[in-house]
């Protein structure tokens, strides 16, 4: 009986010591752990003051920012996360041109000196067919890519 009590007392002491140890984690140590937790997000930083994490910087997306906040909340010893970070404005979408007569004319200009390659408008999708050299295929792609028509069908065979 006495022995059991001793063990229990020891266990209690150990657990209390562990708790008091946790409380002693310094802000510097927490800042270091917090910084590690958000290394996946360049351009951002975190500082812990009195157990409160202050997140700052610019995140690529709102989802990234939320994920970083969640990661910080999981760091033991951090009581709260203050979100002082921002999200970068979304880049304007790429303007994709539709294949019309003017675009087709430009493609045909580009193909003029490249024998064996043909361009057609197949149900609104530019379709390239034929056989040519890699050097010529590159010239074709350089010209077509400059028109920014989105996804097209490149069936050119390189010999």
């Amino acid at each position, binding site marked *: 009986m006495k022995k059991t009590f001793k063990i229990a007392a020891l266990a209690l002491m150990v657990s209390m010591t562990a708790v008091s140890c946790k409380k002693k984690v310094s802000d510097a140590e927490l800042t270091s752990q917090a910084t590690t937790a958000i290394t996946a997000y360049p351009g951002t930083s975190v500082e812990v003051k009195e157990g409160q994490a202050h997140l700052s910087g610019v995140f690529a997306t709102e989802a990234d920012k939320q994920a970083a906040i969640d990661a910080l909340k999981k760091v033991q010893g951090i009581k709260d996360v203050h979100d002082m970070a921002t999200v970068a404005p979304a*880049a304007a*979408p*790429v303007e*994709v041109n539709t294949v019309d007569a003017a675009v087709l004319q*430009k493609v*045909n*200009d*580009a193909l*003029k*000196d490249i024998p064996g390659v043909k361009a057609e408008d197949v149900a609104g999708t530019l379709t390239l067919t034929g056989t040519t050299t*890699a050097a010529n*295929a*590159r*010239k*074709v*792609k*350089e*010209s077509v*890519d*400059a028109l*920014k028509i*989105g*996804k*097209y*069908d*490149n069936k*050119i065979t*390189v010999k």
Partner: protein
Amino acid sequence: MSLQDKYASVVSAAQSAGLSDLSVQEQDGVLYITGKASSSAAKDSVWNALGAIDSSYTATDINIDVQVSGLAAGASLTVATDESNLNIRQEPSTEAAVVGKAAKGEVVTLVEQSSDDWWKIKTADGEEGYAYARYLKA
């Protein structure tokens, strides 16, 4: 694997080519690399990087729109046709009348970069008109 990963070497070539207004965007299954090069060599370095991955240059999940731009009027350009002479035309169109010719390797003078594909040039003989930009190296 995202397109950014698949074409990481092309993106990195674009970043080290010193392009201005460089943008790298993935949209609807196409990776768009857009920027302005100050020389043909800078533009070529990006295309060479693509060639190392796609040797047939037929991939359509990447769109490289890197144009040599911002050249000053009076800049020297070298005619880079395969063999034939470069046609100099009255208007920026393959339909327009040929007003002069420049031989492969000949150095001509830029008048203006009228568009991405047609540049106005002047030969040493004073022939002036539009030539297809693909055959001019800056």
